[in-house]
């Protein structure tokens, strides 16, 4: 077990509230963020984060340190968010497939109106982080079905069959949503990059 994690685990097992509070302040926002990508609503994501803390406390004695403690806690939140998504997918995944953002990309002959501009590889890690933040924000603006499919497939690395099964949709529908979601993210990030002050 990582020495820093061992200290925290020891503190929790000794029922040290300050140790627990520090952990909550460090990770709570991240737990809410990962749950919100799947569930959309802040309140539902907050509930998942609170359930996660309950589970962390009831299971901390079984933490073996095979991964870092933060990874273990985030994984608990992801699992709980997925469980809630499966239970409430009819409510969460309301709405249609969303517009096809690519409708305006092509001319009457089906050719690009303007050439895609392959994004520059960021020159600094700061720029790389900025692009990721842009994407994290843009993801939350997608229609629910697109957001969830992109999250399961591209953020969580779930395969197409499992994602379709989790959401109770056909694989073809899943592909349409993935295509539209990625296209919308591409437009959102490209627009944000164009708007950046030079």
């Amino acid at each position: 077990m990582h020495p820093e994690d061992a200290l925290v685990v020891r503190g929790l097992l000794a029922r040290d509230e300050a140790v627990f509070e520090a952990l909550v302040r460090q990770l709570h926002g991240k737990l809410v963020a990962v749950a919100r990508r799947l569930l959309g609503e802040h309140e539902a994501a907050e509930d998942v984060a609170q359930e996660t803390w309950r589970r962390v406390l009831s299971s901390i004695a079984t933490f073996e340190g095979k991964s870092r403690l933060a990874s273990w806690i985030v994984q608990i939140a992801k699992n709980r968010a997925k469980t809630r998504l499966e239970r409430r997918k009819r409510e969460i995944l309301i709405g249609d497939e969303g517009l096809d953002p690519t409708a305006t990309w092509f001319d009457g002959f089906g050719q690009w109106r303007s050439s895609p501009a392959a994004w520059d590889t960021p020159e600094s890690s700061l720029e790389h982080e900025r692009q990721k933040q842009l994407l994290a924000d843009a993801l939350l603006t997608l229609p629910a079905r697109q957001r969830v499919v992109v999250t399961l497939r591209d953020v969580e690395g779930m395969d197409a069959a499992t994602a379709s099964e989790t959401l109770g949709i056909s694989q073809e529908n899943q592909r349409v949503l993935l295509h539209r979601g990625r296209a919308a993210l591409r437009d959102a990030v490209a627009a944000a990059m164009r708007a950046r002050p030079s």
Partner: protein
Amino acid sequence: MIVTCRDLAARLTELEEGVGSAVERASLRFHLSICARCRRYVAELDRLKGLLTDLGREQDPVVPMSAEAAPDPAVARALSTFRAWKTGESSPDDD
């Protein structure tokens, strides 16, 4: 089978998942081999997918800029759970 840039963009996920007939996939690949604009689009998407994968890094997931630091009411709620656990009054998990 004539493939336009619009077709290619719409069917990239099929190509990625290996669905469709061999002829259809070969037609899409052929279009890619002769269309620099579509290759740039594929490069854009690859970069996008790489960034999305980075968002999910388990230990340090990226949070939106709009995300708040843990607000006090959320911390207070978690601490209340902690106190119940500490005194043995914690309710069982709702699994």
